[in-house]
């Protein structure tokens, strides 16, 4: 198992390299560059082309594509993420302020959706065909099919504008120090982010649980005279867990990469919001760093999923 994990971690490096290269190439192929976004079109008209060219050269944009990519990559290996082209701020600082905000939402959404989603899914499966099950199924379908931004806007309209329970957006206000102060800001974005994930987990947990309950070993467990809770939870749910863990694991990178839509709707100062503005201004170093972050999140999440599945299901043997 340990050699397997080491091997998987080592594989991460070339994979991250290749994916970063592709993202860099994609950015290169988009028309315009950072300079054309930095200078207001009206001002650009009155500017001297040599001045613009000088600005390009000073940002290193004059060099060929592969040279720029290589210098970005070697700097990265030395722990230097570079500087934002539009603000000149070290990217490490940007990530350091943005990432906690995103992780905060992600953690709440993940914990909430895992617990509530599995609970409702199992309940739905155990009460199959009942009114509870039908109601949960309908709610689940709604949760899966209605887009997040719609939930976000409805929530803002009802709970922020009409009822005034929560602030419309943002993460903090001047003078807020503790997490407790910021809690009201977090409620709506975290809940809306949780809805989709919860609905997905619930649907998955239900079908996975139904599948497990129909298996022969459930009848065996019952024929041994075990109490129903033990039959359902120890024998049923334990087996139903594997697909649910896989689902949750693969949602992890989406949450860490920042839920772009939720962060936009609630003006949440997270990675997703930063990503949007960086792409708009063709701020290569920032886009690349966030892309790298997402890539690592995907790769690490899949490694975690593999390890967890092996822990849950003894039939899975890693690296054999």
């Amino acid at each position, binding site marked *: 198992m340990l050699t397997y994990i080491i091997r998987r971690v080592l594989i991460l490096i070339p994979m991250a390299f290749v994916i970063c290269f592709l993202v860099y190439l994609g950015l290169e192929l988009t028309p315009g560059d950072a300079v054309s976004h930095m200078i207001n079109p009206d001002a650009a008209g009155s500017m001297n082309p040599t001045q613009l060219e000088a600005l390009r050269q000073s940002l290193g944009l004059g060099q060929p594509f592969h040279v720029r990519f290589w210098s970005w990559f070697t700097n990265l290996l030395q722990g230097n993420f570079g500087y934002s082209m539009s603000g000149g701020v070290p990217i490490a600082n940007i990530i350091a302020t943005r990432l906690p905000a995103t992780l905060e939402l992600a953690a709440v959404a993940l914990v909430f959706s895992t617990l509530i989603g599995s609970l409702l899914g199992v309940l739905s499966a155990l009460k199959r065909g009942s009114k509870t099950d039908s109601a949960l199924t309908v709610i689940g379908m709604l949760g899966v099919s209605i887009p997040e931004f719609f939930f976000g806007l409805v929530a803002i309209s009802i709970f922020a504008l009409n009822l005034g329970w929560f602030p419309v957006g943002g993460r903090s206000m001047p003078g807020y120090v503790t997490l407790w102060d910021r809690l009201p800001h977090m409620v709506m974005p975290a809940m809306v982010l949780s809805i989709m994930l919860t609905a997905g987990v619930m649907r998955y947990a239900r079908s996975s649980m139904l599948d497990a309950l129909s298996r022969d*070993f459930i009848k065996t467990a019952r024929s041994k005279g075990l109490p129903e809770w033990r039959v359902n939870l120890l024998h049923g749910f334990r087996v139903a867990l594997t697909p649910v863990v896989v689902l949750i694991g693969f949602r992890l990178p989406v949450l860490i990469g920042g839920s772009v839509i939720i962060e936009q709707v609630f003006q949440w100062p997270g990675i997703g919001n930063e990503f949007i503005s960086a792409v708009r201004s063709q701020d290569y170093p920032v886009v690349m760093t966030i892309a790298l972050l997402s890539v690592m999140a995907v790769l690490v999440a899949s490694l975690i999923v593999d390890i967890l599945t092996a822990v849950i299901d*003894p039939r899975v043997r890693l690296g054999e």
Partner: protein
Amino acid sequence: MTATQDIAISVRDLKTFFYTNNRCNKALNGVSFDIKKGKTLCIVGESGCGKSVTAASIMQLLPTLSRIEQGEIIYHADRGDIPLHALEKNGRHMRRIRGAEIAMIFQDPMTALNPVYSVGFQIKESLKYHMKMVGQAAHQKAISLLKEMGIALPEKRVNDFPHRYSGGMRQRAMIAMAMACSPKVLIADEPTTALDVTIQAQIFELMDKLKREHGTGIMLITHDMGVVAELADDVAVMYMGNIVEAGTVDEVLRQPTHPYTKALLASVPVLGKGKNQDIKAIRGSTPDPLNRPKGCQFAGRCDFATAQCQTMPEETHITPTHRVMCWRYKELVPNG
């Protein structure tokens, strides 16, 4: 008739119906038999005749859309007679009997064990719930059970997961689990159908040993006539939810009276008779269980059917132990 104290479970006029799409399938239509202590009762019949439903009825493990409509299942426990049919399906009383006093093993050992728990864990579950045995004591008991079932290196194997066991070993582990609390009755629902022939013989030998050494009453569901001849003390032949003929193994196999039993026996190939032997398949096929013929269920496929067969024949005793459900049994009794 056998004295009551020798009987472990008696089933009387059992009717279990299935309800699907507002239609009723009379899966068991009045079934009576006794499982005797220390004896093997074989229930034979073709697929869908109600063998497994009988087992599920006794264990109260029927699916949700079915129920026992009528009749009794009496378990003659040491502490008095217990009407199993009246107990709540997954209630405390039923659970106390299940696994402890009446245990069951299933057809396919590949799927009947939970893949995510070790074999030892699954055996110890029974010990924990019925005998309050935990920790080292339970562990040692699990090892000795596996050893008794002929599993090599039980100390090591007890911690293995089912996927590391072969098919035959899994069925042995299932039997170990079923025998964990020394049940009075073991119900085996086609325990060897999924196994190859050599393993089958070993499993049956094991069950026979348990019967002799522990005095366990066995109800063995099978459709293999060879197995019946080998293991059974009593035989009940089922067809479409009825026991058409029942008796001791000698009576049923040597003097088959019901046309269905005769046809069934005539359709079994005999080893050593060569490839030109005359195997008579039973003509026609089983009727639709949701749209049953009137009267005797076998009449449509029977060479002896008459107009009288439009009504259901009564159960008639030829000898005190041998009974048959056929209007014309008198003409059909072999040797007069």
